[in-house]
């Protein structure tokens, strides 16, 4: 179906949310202060606030904002929870209990998150029912994605390095772009259309002037972000696989891991990481199976019974993460498993910076040693 675009005034955004909350468990962006601040070291004045997504019914309405950039938590948390029961055995009834969950609607998602969902979908969905994660699939297909343009960015943002734009053109149900005293609302799915139809009084068709105004704003953000990224000199996505392969024996992995405290922040905040472990527990007369997030920066990730561990050293684990993101995924789906959201940079207490590592790998391959 053709995407329709409307204008929604500032006063009516809560009415829009109120309509959505009738059918969905709605999450909305709220500003929050975190101690994590990465200052820009070449003169740009960039925001350092953060946003979290809170349940609509649990926030004061005046707290709700339009987030300038992606929220703290990766979007996958809504579809693949950190720790989730995925089976109970061997009760008489081993069929899944029908979890009565209201589908989620998530406002505040940005294009980096939309890009990452392509990777999560590749992992957890499939053409064949035998390999579909039913829990992910149910939440994913029922969810309402309300994405938004990024009118700003923070220091750690680097989506454009990989040609991912700071605004969404696909992969959402609704998209909001801030414009003048309101929002342009793209309606991009059947379920969004149904909702839009029920609040037609709030929506006026976007004018050509408004659409070109949006384009101009988008271009301006891109220009500023590109200038920001020019200082970071991040390699283009076309060379990522090559430089990671070439850097297999690089000293970078050893050097970077000197400050790693093995907290797992990078893997758990990552928008594209997906690894988990099936872990069983006794539960009364029954046993239950949990799907718990896991990740390759943790030391027992590849440990086998008997003690063998293919990633026994820390540098191997860091390198493994880059091989997975920039070699494995490029081989298997044709693009890198990194959306440039910068969450791993923000969260790392050891200041390990993916942009820096990629740049160093590039330099080692292409710049002659001095």
């Amino acid at each position, binding site marked *: 179906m053709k995407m329709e675009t409307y204008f929604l005034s500032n006063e009516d955004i809560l009415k829009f949310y109120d309509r959505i909350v009738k059918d969905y468990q709605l999450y909305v962006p709220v500003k929050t202060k975190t101690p994590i601040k990465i200052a820009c070291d070449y003169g740009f004045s960039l925001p350092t606030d953060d946003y979290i997504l809170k349940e609509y019914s649990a926030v004061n309405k005046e707290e709700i904002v339009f987030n300038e950039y992606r929220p703290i938590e990766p979007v996958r948390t809504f579809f693949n929870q950190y720790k989730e029961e995925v089976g109970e*055995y061997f009760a008489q009834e081993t069929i*899944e209990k029908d979890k009565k969950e209201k589908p989620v609607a998530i406002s505040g998602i940005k294009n980096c998150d939309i890009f990452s969902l392509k990777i999560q979908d590749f992992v957890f969905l499939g053409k064949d029912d035998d390999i579909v994660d039913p829990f992910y699939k*149910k939440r994913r297909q029922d969810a309402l994605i309300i994405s938004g343009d990024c009118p700003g960015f923070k220091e750690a943002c680097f989506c454009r390095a990989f040609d991912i734009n700071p605004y969404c053109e696909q992969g959402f149900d609704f998209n909001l772009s801030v414009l003048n005293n309101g929002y342009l609302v793209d309606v991009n799915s059947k379920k969004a259309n149904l909702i839009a139809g029920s609040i037609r009084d709030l929506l006026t068709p976007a004018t050509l002037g408004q659409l070109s105004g949006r384009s101009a704003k988008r271009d301006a953000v891109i220009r500023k972000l590109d200038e920001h990224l020019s200082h970071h000199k991040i390699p283009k996505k076309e060379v990522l696989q090559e430089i990671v392969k070439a850097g297999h024996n690089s000293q970078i992995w050893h050097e970077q891991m000197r400050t790693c405290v093995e907290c797992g922040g990078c893997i758990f905040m990552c928008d594209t990481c997906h690894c988990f472990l*099936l872990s*069983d527990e006794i539960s009364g007369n029954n046993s239950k199976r949990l799907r718990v997030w896991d990740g390759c920066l943790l030391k027992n990730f590849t440990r086998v019974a008997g003690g063998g561990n293919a990633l*026994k050293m820390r540098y191997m684990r860091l390198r493994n993460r880059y091989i997975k993101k920039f070699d494995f995924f490029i081989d298997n789906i044709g693009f890198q498993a990194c959306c440039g959201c910068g969450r791993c940079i923000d969260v790392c207490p050891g200041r390990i910076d993916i942009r820096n590592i990629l740049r160093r790998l590039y330099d080692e391959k292409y710049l002659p040693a001095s």
Partner: protein
Amino acid sequence: MMKNIYQPVEAVIENIIQETSAIKTFTLKPKTDFSFVTGQFIELTVPGLGEAPFTPSSDPGIKERMDVTIMKTGAVTSKLHEMQKGQVVGIRGPFGKGYPLHKFKGKDLLIVGGGVGLAPLRSLLFSLFSTIDNYNKVLLRYGSRTANDIVYKGSIGEWAKRDKFDIVTSVDIGDPSWQGNVGLVTTILKDMPIDLNNASAIVCGPPIMMKFVTLKLLDLGFKPKDIYLSMEKSMSCGLGKCGHCRLGKFYICKDGPVFTYEELKDIHDIWD
């Protein structure tokens, strides 16, 4: 709701055979028939404790029960070794791709096993027995640490009597009762009546054994595409989602566990 890919199927332990001091073969009877192709693996659940991956060691032609030969090494296997007949475990699978029997047609087959690595190979042997007309000959070269560590002791002699079969065993450390070869399994990979231009080698054992057997086979003149290796890592989901068993661009659980050396030779650290 669609099928839950993480849910195990109930299976009763019907029989237990003590193969060696640390290895037992469990015969499992699943609640519903369970088919697998030789070389595929299953996830075996100890209720409440967790899962571990194993390749069944029985005849894939038998659907109503299966054998799994297990060495006591970690938490799940230790608990399994304490379990008794009649107790219940869980199984999920089968996972991955098995041995490509169709590619073995008309060939000389060299099967090299080490220790409990003979378990998956036993299921392969059963498959070969029932289709033996398809192959020229089958050589089995099996090494274990000591004579006491040999699995399927009673069966190896019987297999050796079969038409087209040629079996040699070796132990790393000999003892006065042992009449056969003493030395690593690579020491019995010589003077083999095999046509290298028309042979496939199938190797299963601990990583260090597979590494040196592969090097030896290459040295003998086997081509990388004719060497089949059973790889293993800490497979958890079995379906290419949990991420634990990545090897290069592959997941061992869904792209393997059987790979040719040709597929793996350019990947770093495959034996770790």
